[in-house]
């Protein structure tokens, strides 16, 4: 990650998936703090609270209760203060419609969660490498 002090916002309701991401990040030595709202609504609450640090990236699950990933994107991408934070979708869904909706709403990437943990670590390694190189607006 380019800014190792900024948090990663992991919008995810599955506890083991949260553990998986945290563990994988630790394994590849990503030291950014991970903030974990359980759904889109909580994520928005976090983002709109000025006392909270702005995340360097948002990792977004699509299937979540209360407010799902697509609904969350619809709000974020229409908010002038939030729309430039890169959002990467991290999901089980390989449904074409989900990919279309996500990219229509300007996501920076779309990754399927592999069942195998080792493979997942490799996905996160590539993810980290990319977002270390990529410039983002401050």
């Amino acid at each position: 990650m380019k800014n190792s002090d900024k948090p990663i916002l992991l919008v995810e309701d599955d506890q083991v998936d949260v553990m998986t991401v945290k563990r994988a990040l630790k394994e590849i030595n990503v030291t950014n703090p991970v903030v974990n709202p359980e759904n889109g609504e909580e994520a928005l609450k976090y983002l709109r609270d000025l006392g909270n640090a702005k995340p360097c990236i948002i990792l977004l699950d699509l299937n979540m209760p209360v407010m799902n990933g697509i609904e969350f994107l619809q709000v974020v991408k229409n908010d002038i203060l939030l729309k430039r934070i890169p959002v990467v979708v991290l999901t089980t869904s390989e449904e074409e419609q989900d990919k279309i909706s996500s990219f229509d709403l300007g996501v920076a990437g779309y990754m399927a969660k592999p069942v195998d943990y080792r493979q997942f670590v490799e996905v996160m390694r590539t993810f980290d490498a990319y977002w270390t190189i990529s410039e983002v607006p401050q």
Partner: protein
Amino acid sequence: MNNPQKPLFRLKSPASIFLVVALSVFISEASVMLLLYYLPERSLISEAIVDATLLVALISPALYFFLFRPLAIHIRERERIEEVLHKNEEEQFKVMIRTSLDAFLITDLQGRILEVNDAYCSFTGYSREELLTMNAAELAATESADETASDIDKLLETGSNRFEARRRRKDGHIQIVEVSSNYSNLYGGRIYSFLRDITDRKQAEEHRDSLMQEIESANEELKNFAYVVSHDLKAPLRAISSLADWISTDYADKFDDEGRAHMRLLISRVHRMDGLIDGILLYSRVGRVKETMVAVDLNRLVPDVIDSLAPPASISVTIENILPTLVTEPTRIQQVFQNLLSNAIKYMDKPEGEIRINCCDLDGLWKFSISDNGPGIKQQHFEKIFQLFQTLAPRDRVESSGVGLALVRKIVEMYGGHVWVESTVGKGSTFFFTLPHTSSATISSKGFQA
């Protein structure tokens, strides 16, 4: 000397008188016949002749006797015969209307009922006397006055009209009727209509439509069900996989050999389940996800599939003849060859494996065959192997999802073809499948089941 005048005729003998009379009668009869022949039926001239007959009798008895009287008699006779015929025709017409199974009615342009047949009476539940005082509009059930008016307009415009309408019987029942109407401008405008009760037919049609809708939505649900279920199954599976991985990594030093073996089995079962779910996804995707139909040259596609399978050196794969180019979905046809060939490779038990691919033109169909000299399949399994999740070898020996042949069958049948196997145990198997030459045309959005 007076030249005695020589008369033209000298009626000396009765014979000559008779001759003259007979000649006159003959000539007059002949002219009457000729006149009648050229006289139009029921013309003003014939009426004039009849009217003038008495007058002629007073002026010239000869003309009366020889021409007008016979003419008048003939004309009257002809009129009488015509009238009888006409009456018969009318009678015949009435019998026809009475006999008709379809209801019949005559109305004027205002819709007043002027005549009905018995079928119409039993059709509406009203008596003939009641109906003759009614207006056809009173029997209409749901049509608005506008609709009725537009039907009448169309009728006046084209002379005839066929339409469906709803009628209310005397007992309140609603009937759906098919109406065929004709307009005639006799007597200031008349509408002649035949009506047929099509309520049963309509209800049957509606029932069929609603059944079709149910089937379609059930089918749709089934398609989505497989997808959604397999999706939701993946999440906990991923959790199990991760947790098992962490336990075996984090507590590696605490496990003995048996513990480690169990963890290995646990993870391998997770992978198997993952494979099964992927299989369901793959299977449910056929027909659910549409690809663009393109011309696929099998002479390129099949060698590519063989390359991707990377058969071991001990197995030879030969394409025996030139393969056709099909207009189809490339992924689907690739899946067919990939599954059949990978099975042939996977189950090969001979030191020198031979796999042969063949294609022949079979009267509107392409018949493909993939033969191997592998273990063969017992006849009792010929049908079972094409079912979803059916495998013949224990999964621990040959890792298989049991989806491959089911997928092949679903794809081939979706394109209007068939797939079957012929096999001799110990000698090998041949899988056949057919595809119509015009497979592209048989694919419709509803042409197959999930």
